[in-house]
């Protein structure tokens, strides 16, 4: 199976499709933005950097990715525990204001319990199976919110893709097929968890 052809679609999903007009923010907006994001940090950590062990860090998320995540959870397109309810409480405009705020926050990563051998093997697996869509390179804002993310969250997230019909579901199916089991997914998770 070749995933290269999906790259274009992927860019659409994660970037270009969310084509919002750039607006200039008026002066009272700063207070308004804080009013909104202040309600998130009790769960997501100060400025969106979570202390873990599971709730994802949302600091530094690219704006379109953030908006897509919120909209998908709001519309039930993406499974969630609390976020479906939470996202429903905000208008599109408010979501955009919050996306703007969190995308500008510096990510603080906390050390996780990583098995370095697994992480090492995971690095190779990543190159082979995932890197085509999830490039992990040195860039200020990665396309996805995976590298350095809390490992339990990544586990929950991966298991959500099972049995679906998305690109990710196919990628996982392919991975499991090639590796004969799901166990080696752990190596990938340790690799992502080891990224600072």
């Amino acid at each position: 199976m070749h995933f290269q052809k999906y790259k274009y679609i992927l860019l659409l999903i994660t970037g270009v499709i969310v084509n919002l007009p750039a607006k200039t923010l008026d002066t009272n907006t700063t207070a308004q933005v804080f009013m909104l994001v202040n309600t998130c940090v009790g769960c997501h950590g100060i400025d969106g950097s979570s202390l873990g062990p599971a709730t994802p860090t949302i600091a530094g998320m690219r704006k379109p990715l953030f908006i897509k995540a919120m909209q998908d959870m709001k519309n039930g397109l993406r499974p969630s525990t609390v976020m479906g309810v939470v996202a429903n409480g905000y208008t599109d405009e408010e979501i955009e204001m919050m996306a703007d705020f969190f995308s500008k926050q510096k990510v603080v990563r906390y050390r996780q319990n990583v098995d370095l051998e697994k992480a090492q093997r995971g690095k190779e697996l990543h190159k082979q199976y995932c890197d085509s869509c999830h490039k992990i390179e040195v860039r200020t804002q990665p396309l996805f919110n995976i590298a350095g993310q809390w490992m339990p969250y990544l586990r929950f997230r991966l298991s959500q893709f099972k049995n679906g019909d998305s690109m990710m579901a196919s990628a996982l199916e392919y991975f499991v097929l090639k590796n004969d089991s799901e166990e080696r997914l752990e190596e990938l998770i340790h690799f992502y968890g080891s990224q600072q």
Partner: protein
Amino acid sequence: MSNFTRRHFLGLAAGTAAAGIAGYYFIAPRAKKKVVVIGGGAGGVIAAKYIRKADNMIDVTLIEPNKDYYTCFMSNEVLSGVHTIDSIKFGYDKLSSQYGINMVYDSAIAIDANAKTVRLQGGTTIAYDRLIVSPGVDYRWDAIDGYDESLIEKIPHAWKAGSQTVILRKQLEAMKNGGTVIITVPPKPFRCPPAPYERASQIAHYMKQHKPQSKVLIFDANQAFAKQPLFIEGWKKLYGYGTDKSFIEWIPPEEGGELVAVDAEEMTIYAGEFEDEHKADVLNIVPPQKAGKIAIESGLADDTGWCPVNQQTFESSLQKDIHVIGDSCIAGAMPKSAYSANSQAKVCAQAVISALEGGKMVEPSFVNTCYSLIGDDFAISVAAIYRLKDGKIQATQGASGTSPLDASLEYRRSEAAYAYSWYKNITSDMFS
């Protein structure tokens, strides 16, 4: 703007020659506005910190009698031995060292709303431009025949965490296998609606591992409780609820669940219309509640025993320039919880800054969430977004809900992991 640059900027703007004394910039005296906060808990700490974060030209003093704060949240997990008492203990050091908040370890004993001062137990009087009151709850000690404050060492309420939590934990540890624990739940409203049921779950969790012949009975003054179907489902899964082997029994008022009297000597309660007698090995009375003592004594509460406020700014409806937040206030549809107090404190901080520095108050936005840990790797949640509508805080349509029934074990496990994350993040929001 950092402390330094802002001072510097103002100094220059005022045309004052910056007279540096060992690197310290002197500014033309401009009376700093003074905010005093009573109570270093879930509400008070956040209000103090967020005012300083947004505007370091406001002088903030936090009054709190205790050097250590034990969170009520996660204290049920101390009862079951899942966590230690030290793991729920926090100090106020960073609030002074990082945010420049003046910590005063004392109790407020009187508020003079006309003179705008607070008198402390230690004898000092502190002046304020705005006062924020977040003292949590107090108990209606006269409400239960045979139970009052003098008995809390023998019959703990453990509804404030700390030594009370430790006493109850020790009693559970000392109890024989086959013992009966009784929890009594007061009429609503009380601090943290799901907490009595989470407590019963945690005690059952402990019994299941260490004292499998034992039982916990919940005598309830209320006909229904928060997240009830989810608790019941969890109790069935983990604790045999509904069978004769169940670790947990819930007795609603129509089955004689309402507490009438306590005989402390005999460790017996009398409950229900016919005042049936029930003997316990460990007795945990959660007393009926009202606003914190200082709020009531300062004329901030109405005849419900709670404090009415303007729900946009949390300014008292009864006293000028005083704001009440957290468990003590009447905050529309929001339940009394740490997340509510946190959310209200942030809105109140903006209201106080607008009032002192001028500027329009923006539309408030609130969240509440409450996780309950029913067992190991097994949690449920409730979450809701609230906005101001017709002057009242109301849940936003479609933006409130609980975990689903019939969810997989993996789902419950993920919520347990999220519950611990919530705890870490909200306590770091407060104390670091």
